[in-house]
């Protein structure tokens, strides 16, 4: 654990912790709103900010924040305009951001070598001033994503209903993209602008496989995000690789591991099809043929359906329900 004594590693670990906390927190809303690739686009826009900072010799992080937030506002206004051309306009904005950033960095002779620290993350380049700014921005994202959870959840799941109960839907939508833009820049130093979107989406996807309910999955995704970000930074110290790549690979490994578990959990959760009893008069009593050597149960291999207050098992196209020592046709 000697890396803990290195000042740059301490800074990198704190930055990773904050990226791991904030990215899945805003990602939970973005996934619910089916905008999984929004973070990717915002990352591209932020590259223009980094290029601008390198060209003008100013600090890259504040510039990236300003440019990404401005880009986020434009994206949301384009989306709200509802025009068909909005989709193309967004694509132009995203690639325009990437191209501008690379071009500006190249013009001042920084080239892609310097820029790659921002594209894929870097352990060495985080300054103390960066860290303070990252911490401040992370606090804003954390406070909003947790404090406004019911409101943001309502807006992401059913915008029209949210409007009818008097929520300021446009303002909340704008808040979500602005928070996403801030998160992109919070994670820029550790995960890198090209891969930040993965840390927003993949832990949420894994948590959604493993847990039920928005709130539970939200906090589970944050835990997965923190584990992936911190272990990725530690691993990249030993492997001498850009931390962003390792963080994303670890997050995806968690997601892949969650897939078979999700199947098991889903079966256990008894999400059986339901047949509601709407006519209270009982069915005429009709016994099935004798079941020799077979009793129906959760593990019997026959598909089960919930029928009112009991379970029926599908057996050769019939629905069999237990009744005393025999089965009835239902």
């Amino acid at each position, binding site marked *: 654990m000697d890396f803990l004594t290195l000042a740059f590693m301490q800074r990198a670990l704190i930055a990773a912790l904050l990226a791991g906390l904030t990215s899945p927190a805003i990602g939970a809303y973005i*996934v*619910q709103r089916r905008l999984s690739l929004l973070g990717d686009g915002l990352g591209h826009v932020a590259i223009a900010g980094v290029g601008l900072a390198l060209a003008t010799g100013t600090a890259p992080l504040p510039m990236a924040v300003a440019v990404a937030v401005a880009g986020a506002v434009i994206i949301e206004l384009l989306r709200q305009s509802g025009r068909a051309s909005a989709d193309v306009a967004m694509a132009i904005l995203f690639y325009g951001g990437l191209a501008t950033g690379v071009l500006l960095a190249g013009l001042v002779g920084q080239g892609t070598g310097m820029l790659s620290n921002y594209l894929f993350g870097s352990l060495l380049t985080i300054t103390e001033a960066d860290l303070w700014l990252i911490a401040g921005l992370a606090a804003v994202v954390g406070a909003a994503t947790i*404090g*406004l959870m*019911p*409101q943001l*959840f*309502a807006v992401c*799941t*059913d915008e*029209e*209903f*949210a*409007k*009818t*109960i*008097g*929520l300021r839907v446009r303002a909340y939508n704008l808040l979500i993209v602005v928070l996403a833009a801030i998160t992109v820049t919070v994670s820029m130093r550790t995960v890198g602008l090209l891969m930040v979107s993965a840390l927003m989406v993949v832990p949420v996807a894994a948590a*959604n496989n493993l847990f*039920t*309910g*928005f*709130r539970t*999955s939200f906090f589970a995704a944050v835990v997965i995000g923190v584990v992936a970000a911190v272990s990725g930074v530690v691993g990249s110290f030993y492997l001498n690789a850009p931390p962003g790549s390792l963080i994303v690979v670890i997050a995806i490994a968690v997601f892949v591991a969650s897939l078979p578990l999700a199947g098991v959990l889903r079966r256990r*959760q008894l*999400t059986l*099809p*339901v047949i*509601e009893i*709407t*006519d209270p*008069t009982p069915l005429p009593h009709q016994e099935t043929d004798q079941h020799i050597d077979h009793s129906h149960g959760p593990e019997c291999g026959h598909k089960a359906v919930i029928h009112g207050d009991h379970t029926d098992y599908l057996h050769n196209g019939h629905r069999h329900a237990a009744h005393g020592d025999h089965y009835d046709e239902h």
Partner: protein
Amino acid sequence: MQVTQPDSVIRTESLLVELGGLPILREVSIDIKRGDLTALMGGNGSGKTTLVRTLLGLIPHQGGQIELFGTPDNDFHEWNRIGYVPQRGTVNIKQATVAEVVATGRLSVRRPFSLTSKSDRRRIAQALEQVELSDRAHRPFAHLSGGQQQRVLIARALAGEAELLILDEPFAGVDLGVQDSLATLLGGLNRQGTTVLVVLHETGALTPLLTNAIVLREGRVIHVGAPPAEPDHYHERDERAEERLLHGLIGESH
């Protein structure tokens, strides 16, 4: 300042709504009183969904007036008094429990950055009880049957202590038995004092419970008053009516 409780819950006067330059609703004047259970009917494209969306403030109107609970719509802010139940097909909630979906209905009375209060929890539990889904509170919404999802959306609207429920085609895509149980639920809520406005393609299971019907055709009101005796004259599709008739006959032969 309004001192007496006005009798009208929804009143429109010569309402005009245009979408993309085309008039969708013309000269629509309706008056829904407290305690009514009104069906808003009409064929496809008659403007019934546009009318409820306009009443809810989701679509602007180009002419005429709307009053909600006696207040002109521009000055109306008590949105918690109105509970909107959208068509189930338009709601796509992936990762949420039933209780979480119902809890969003409380946001009309909750402030941002506030914690879920005891009264919020009590009201959510009560709303789930009213739709008989208390045992499903912690199940994923997406795994429920169509009729159950519709009932969750009704509970969400009730959670804000709505006095007026507006439902958009609650019977769409649910089978006849479930339609009957939803009708019973709406009738029960109406008896307890909730005013109900329900957009319907056909009256079906609700017929005996309706106090009023408004029928639209090509954006105009063509009937106001008693529920039409033969609602099927007002629209073109009647396979479902035949199905219901058949169901009724089979039901009686038992």
